[in-house]
C-alpha cells in the first residue's frame, strides 16, 4: 500500500466513523422524541395513578405531584368489587358484563359492515358511488345529542327500548360512517389489479373480499376496532339514554360512582375506577399492535 492509499484509507475510516456517529445521533433523536412525548402523554396518567394510591386527606393537602406517603391499592379493590353505586354495592364488577355484551356485537357488526361498504365503494364501483360515500360520510357529523329523542322514539317502536340490543343497534348506526371511511380510504390504496385477478380466477364478491382483501387489511381493521371499541366502551350518552336498570354499561356505573353532585367525592376511588374501566380498551390496544405489520402488499404488482 502506498502512502497516499494509507491516507485515503484513514480518511475513509474517519468518514465512516463520523457517519456512524451521525447515524447514532439520529437514532438518539428518534428515541428522545418518542420518550419525551411518552412522558408528556403519561404525565396525567401518572398523576392519576398516584392519586389513586393516596388517601383522601392526603389528596386534600393538594400536593398533586407528591408521592403517596402510604401507597395503597385498596381503592382499586374497593371500586372493583365493593363500592356502592346507588343501592348496589358490587363495585364496577356488576356492569362489566353488560359492556361486553354491548361492545362485542356492536364492534363486530359495525366493523364488518364498514369493511364491506369500503370494499364495494372502491372495488365494485357503480354509478354515484362517490356521492353515496359522501352522503355516508357527511352523516357522521350529526350531533349525537340531537338524535337522542328521535332515536328513543324509534327504539320504542321497535320494542328495543332499554335493552342491550337496542344499544348495539344505535352504536352500529353511528359507527358505520367511520368504519366505512376507514376501510374505503384504505382499500383505495390496494391495487385494483389483484381484485381483477381474483375475478378472473373465478372468485366471487365474497371470496374476493374474504380471501384477497381481508388478509392485507389488518392495520385498518385494527384502526376500526380501536375506534369502535373505544368509542362504544366509553360511550355514556347512549348508554344512559337507551338502557335502564341492570342493563347499564360500565361507563354509566363509572359515571355514577364518580359524578356525584351534592354527595361526597372520593378522588382516589374515582381515579382507580377510571383506570380499571380503561383496562379492556388497553388490552385491545396491546393486542391490536401486533397487526400493524409492514410490507403486506409486497411483491403483488409491478409498476
Amino acid at each position: 500500500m502506498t502512502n497516499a492509499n494509507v491516507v485515503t484509507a484513514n480518511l475513509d475510516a474517519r468518514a465512516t466513523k463520523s457517519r456512524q456517529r451521525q447515524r447514532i445521533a439520529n437514532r438518539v433523536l428518534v428515541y428522545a422524541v418518542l420518550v419525551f412525548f411518552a412522558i408528556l402523554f403519561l404525565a396525567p396518567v401518572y398523576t392519576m395513578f398516584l392519586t389513586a394510591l393516596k388517601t383522601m386527606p392526603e389528596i386534600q393537602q393538594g400536593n398533586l405531584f407528591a408521592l403517596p406517603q402510604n401507597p395503597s391499592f385498596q381503592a382499586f379493590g374497593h371500586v372493583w368489587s365493593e363500592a356502592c353505586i346507588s343501592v348496589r354495592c358490587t363495585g364496577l364488577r356488576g356492569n362489566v358484563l353488560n359492556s361486553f355484551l354491548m361492545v362485542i356485537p356492536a364492534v363486530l357488526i359495525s366493523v364488518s359492515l364498514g369493511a364491506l361498504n369500503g370494499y364495494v365503494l372502491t372495488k365494485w364501483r357503480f354509478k354515484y358511488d362517490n356521492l353515496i360515500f359522501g352522503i355516508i360520510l357527511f352523516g357522521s357529523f350529526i350531533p349525537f345529542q340531537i338524535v337522542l329523542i328521535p332515536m328513543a322514539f324509534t327504539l320504542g317502536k321497535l320494542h328495543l327500548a332499554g335493552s342491550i340490543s337496542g344499544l348495539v343497534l344505535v352504536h352500529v348506526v353511528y359507527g358505520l360512517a367511520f368504519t366505512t371511511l376507514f376501510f374505503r380510504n384504505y382499500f383505495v390504496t390496494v391495487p385494483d389489479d389483484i381484485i381483477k385477478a381474483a375475478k378472473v380466477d373465478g372468485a366471487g364478491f365474497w371470496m374476493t373480499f374474504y380471501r384477497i382483501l381481508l388478509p392485507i387489511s389488518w392495520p385498518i381493521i385494527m384502526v376500526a376496532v380501536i375506534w369502535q371499541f373505544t368509542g362504544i366502551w366509553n360511550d355514556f350518552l347512549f348508554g344512559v339514554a337507551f338502557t335502564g336498570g341492570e342493563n347499564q354499561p360500565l361507563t354509566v356505573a363509572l359515571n355514577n360512582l364518580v359524578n356525584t353532585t351534592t354527595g361526597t367525592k372520593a378522588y382516589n376511588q374515582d381515579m382507580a375506577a377510571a383506570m380499571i374501566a380503561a383496562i379492556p380498551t388497553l388490552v385491545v390496544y396491546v393486542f391490536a399492535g401486533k397487526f400493524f405489520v409492514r410490507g403486506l402488499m409486497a411483491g403483488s404488482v409491478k409498476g
Partner: protein
Amino acid sequence: EDVEVMHWWTSGGEAEAISVLKKALEGEGVGWKDAAVAGGGGAAAMTALKARVTSGNPPTAAQIGLMGLQEWAGEGLLGDLSATAEKQSWVKDLPPAVMEGAKYEGKFVGVPFNIHRANWLWSNAKIFADNGLTPPTTWDEFFAVGDKLKGKGIIPLALGGEPWQETILLEDTITAVGGSDFYRKAFLELDMGALGSEQMVKAFETLGKIRDYIDPGAPGRAWNDATSMVLTGKAAMQLMGDWAKGEIVKAKLVPGKDILCTPAPGTAGAYHFNVDYFMMFKAEGSHLDAQMKLAAAIMDPSFQETFNMVKGSIPANTAVKGDKFDVCAQQAMKDIQESVAKNALIGALQGGAAQSARIQGAVQDVVANFFSSSQSAKDAVAALVKAVADAKS
C-alpha cells in the same frame, strides 16, 4: 311487583340513604330496580328520563326538583298520588311551599324527601377563634373579616367557580340587599322592574366585590374541593348549601362545632330552600300499588329521619322530631318555622325551586359571565333583564 326508580344519589352517604328506602320497600314485598344516573346536578338523569319517556318506557318514579315537577306534570305524564296523600295526611305534615310544589292542578303528583337550605355560611371555627373573629352576619362584616384574613395569608372565601355555585352567591346577595320580598319579586315572580332595579345592581356589585376574597384557582373547582379548603384550614369560609355537611362528617369533623354554620351574610331569617321530590309516572294495576307503597315509604317519618341525617338536609315531613340531628340541622328546622311565619321561605333558584330550567339557565349565564369578566354591574343587570325576557317567551 317492582318499582324502577331514577335518581342521582349514587355515591357516598346519599347512596346509603337511598338503600334504606330500598330495604323498607322490600320489607313490603316491593322490589327495587335502580336506574341511577349521576352527573350535572341531575342533568344527565333528565336526559335519560326524556329518552325513556319518549321510547314509551318510563320508570316508576324519578327524582326531580320543585319547578321541574311542575313542568313534567304539565306534560300530563304523571300519576295521581292523592289517595296516599290523603291516607298519610300530607297536607298536615308538609310546609305550605313544599306542598304546593308537590301538587299540580290540585292533585298530588310528587312526594318530597327533604328540604335543603342553600343560604348557609360555613366557617372554620379554629381560624376564627385563632384570629379572634366571628362569622360575619352582613356583607360589610364579611368584607371586613375577609380583609383581616387576607392579611394573615388565609383565603377568606373558598369558592368553586362554577356557574351554579356563583349563582348561589347571587341569591345570597339579593336577599341581603333587598330582603326576601325583593328576592321573591325578582326570582319567583320574575318582575321585570325588580330584575332591572337599582337593588339588583347593588346585589351584583356585592357579588363583584366577593371576587377579591377568593383565590385564583377558583374557576372550575368542584364545590367539595372548596369545602375541603375550609376543612383543612386553607380557607376560612364557604357559602354553600347544607349538603356540605357530608364532606364535613366524612372528614371526621363536627358541623356546628369544628365548622360553624350560620346563615349567609344578610340572609338571617330567610330560608332559601329546595326540595327533592319523586315524581310518579302514570301506572296501573299492581304497578300502581307498588308505586303507592313507594310514595308512602318516602313520607314515612322514620325513613325521612334516617335519610336526611345522612343527606344533610331536614325532613320534608314536619312530623319528624329533630332530636337526633346535628345542631346545624336543628337550627335549620327552627329557622324554617320562623321563615314560614315571616313569609321568608323562598325557593332557591339554584336547585330548581324558583324557576324553570330555562330561566335558571339564563340567569346562570349572566352570573357566570359577570363573575369571570370585567363587566359592570349595570351591564350585567341589563343582560339579566334581556336574558330572562328571552327565556320567558
